[in-house]
């Protein structure tokens, strides 16, 4: 079984400041890692994912996450946030070799960007 821990339920940050949203996971098998985002009044959507290869993955809107196997972490970072980044962010994992995505989500972190 897998579990995902997002210790920060809310993160307030000023516009144009950097941000890091923390994610740690526990699993007895190798996993794929995901970050999903839910903007206000919208559905959940994939932000970025790590399947294999380079441990640093990027999204089209400037977020990046780095897979650290030794620390079982997949923290999400952005060097300069915008008001439009205000949303709830969910870290998630899926076991490798399962044949399909059986995703376990964390409890989410609400990012509030302050003007």
């Amino acid at each position, binding site marked *: 079984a897998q579990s*995902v821990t997002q210790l920060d*339920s809310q993160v307030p940050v000023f516009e144009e400041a950097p941000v890091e949203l923390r994610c740690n996971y526990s699993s007895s098998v190798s996993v*794929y890692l995901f970050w999903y985002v839910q903007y206000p009044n*919208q*559905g*959940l*959507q*994939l932000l970025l*994912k790590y*399947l294999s290869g380079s441990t640093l993955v990027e999204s089209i809107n400037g977020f990046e996450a780095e897979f650290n196997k030794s620390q079982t972490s997949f923290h999400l970072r952005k060097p300069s946030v915008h008001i439009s980044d205000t949303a709830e962010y*969910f870290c*998630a994992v*899926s076991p*490798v070799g*399962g*044949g*399909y*995505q*059986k*995703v*376990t*989500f*964390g*409890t*989410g972190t609400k990012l509030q960007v302050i003007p």
Partner: protein
Amino acid sequence: GAGVSQTPSNKVTEKGKYVELRCDPISGHTALYWYRQSLGQGPEFLIYFQGTGAADDSGLPNDRFFAVRPEGSVSTLKIQRTERGDSAVYLCASSSQGKVADTQYFGPGTRLTVL
């Protein structure tokens, strides 16, 4: 093109009643997932369909919950003898083939309230 749609968007029912929640996946997507998101929690996996068959129903909490996908497209989640603890947002997602590299596309959810 059209995304994943779910109906109704809101459902209020009384304890003990039967409810049906509908999901229309993206056309051509063979994989369909149901999740439940309780207040303050991340989505929790319920069931995965590949085509018409339920390939993994290990997340269904008990035998009051049942889901079908008779023609490999639309799916219905059925809850019998609803309880107050069933109150949550029920999310549906689809992906093209269900492979681990495929992106899951989520619908807006159905908010179920059991009085």
